[in-house]
């Protein structure tokens, strides 16, 4: 029963909501449960000047660099992972200064997201002592105002324009749940100004009401929803499908083209396109 609360859009309609220059927190980690169909849609729509915010991006940041859609990144560790090593187009984009990188540790980026989620200007983070990262990022440290004498690094708030997460199941209203680890999706969804959800399948609202503790993001926080089966391809979405390693190999192959790669994606055959 479609209701006036339905947030279901096509992938193309969801992509059209992203302005050029937007900062995007992307869910998942490396090749696992990333919003990859959404990222490909941004490329098809020739978005420019985007920013990726993600502790462990890989395929997503690499394909956006390959398409020339990206101008900035705030990231912890960037690699294709699996047995594929470095992310080649990302690496080139940084080395040739096509994008501006703000390098983080995964947890300093999370501290920035926590600050935004908590509604405060900065957030302490454990560790970091002795690292050069505070130097290049102009991070400050504070001495415990309660007298322990300990110094703690503080990270300024990081508020993405949009958090985009790929989930196993959503209700038409936008309630979203994942199976397996939530990676960094939860804090991203609380930090961003808007949340977009891409789901493998729609499930009845009643199934969320029956097990509300499984819902990662409640519908009132979700601005847009698209249903894209196999949308995390060529990555995995547990327990539905594994990484498509041959597809990643073809993506990495020097004789492959971006157009061929996009054309081979499941989301290229979305009904109605």
């Amino acid at each position: 029963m479609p209701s006036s609360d339905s947030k279901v859009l096509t992938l193309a309609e969801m992509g059209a909501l992203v302005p050029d220059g937007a900062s995007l927190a992307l869910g998942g980690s490396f090749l696992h449960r990333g919003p990859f169909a959404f990222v490909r849609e941004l490329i098809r729509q020739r978005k420019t000047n985007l920013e990726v915010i993600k502790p462990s991006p890989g395929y997503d940041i690499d394909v956006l660099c390959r398409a020339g859609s990206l101008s900035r990144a705030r990231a912890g560790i960037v690699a294709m992972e699996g047995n594929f090593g470095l992310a080649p187009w990302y690496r080139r984009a940084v080395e040739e200064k096509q994008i501006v990188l703000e390098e983080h540790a995964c947890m300093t980026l999370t501290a920035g997201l926590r600050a935004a989620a908590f509604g405060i200007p900065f957030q302490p983070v454990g560790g970091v002592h002795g690292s050069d990262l505070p130097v290049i990022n102009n991070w400050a440290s504070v001495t415990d105002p309660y007298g322990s004498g300990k110094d703690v690094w503080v990270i300024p708030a990081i508020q993405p324009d949009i958090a985009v997460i790929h989930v196993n199941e959503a209700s038409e209203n936008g309630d979203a749940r994942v199976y397996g680890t939530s990676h960094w999706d939860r804090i991203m969804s609380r930090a961003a100004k808007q949340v977009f959800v891409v789901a493998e399948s729609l499930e009845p609202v009643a199934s969320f009401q029956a097990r509300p503790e499984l819902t990662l993001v409640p519908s009132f926080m979700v601005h847009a929803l698209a249903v894209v089966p196999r949308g995390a391809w060529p990555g995995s979405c547990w327990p539905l499908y594994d990484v498509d390693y041959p597809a990643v190999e073809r993506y990495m192959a020097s004789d492959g083209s971006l157009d061929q790669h996009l054309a081979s994606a499941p989301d290229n055959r979305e009904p109605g396109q």
Partner: protein
Amino acid sequence: MNAHWSGFSYIVTNLARFIRPDEVTFSGVNSTAPMLACLLAKRAYPFDFTYLNVAGGVQPSPSSVPISSSDPVLAEGSAAIFSNEDFYDLCTRGGMDLCFLGAAQVDGRGQTNVSVIGNWHNPKIRLPGGGGGAVMLPTARRAVTWRTEHSKRTLVDTLDFVTASGGLHGVVTPFAVFVKRDDRLALQSWHPETSLDEVRERTGFEFDATGAAPTPPPQTDEVAALRALDPDGQFEQDATRLIR
């Protein structure tokens, strides 16, 4: 046992030997060797330890060994999902006994660079970047890294960039095992098919070798466990491309 001990097996086995009974031990992303080491220790050693991994697994029993060390299959059989923020917070509050962390360059104080070769602002090679190290290396009780290449460009006197400080407890390469002593990495042992001279020749930092000796060869249980984890030799084959 006089059979050839491959660099791959040497790394995985010696990483596993850092694991101690009843401790909380963690393997992360981009970390095939530590993932295998933790799974090897579970099979080969007569003690229990709490194995956590980046897929959220807590004492998992994965039905297969994935190519990606962050694959969700690594949470199979887990009775809980301990997600990213959980294991980082555990580490910073002092609850992580042993943490395996990646590194591109390591210096004699056990600091690491995973950020850049060359100047950070004008990189020759942009490396993966910060990752867990800057937060976990100074806060884990012990942190151990591995390098598939043992050379003066990976074990260096001066890092191109200090991504993580705080001092590694251990480093394993295809040629040697280093352990921290008096805030410096000291040689603990070398691969029985190499020599102290070759380790010195290949290492860019000064180190103490007092008491160092050839590494004890792999035990039957260790060999059997690694064979069970890599029956087709796929991990061995993938790693051999990188070992030098």
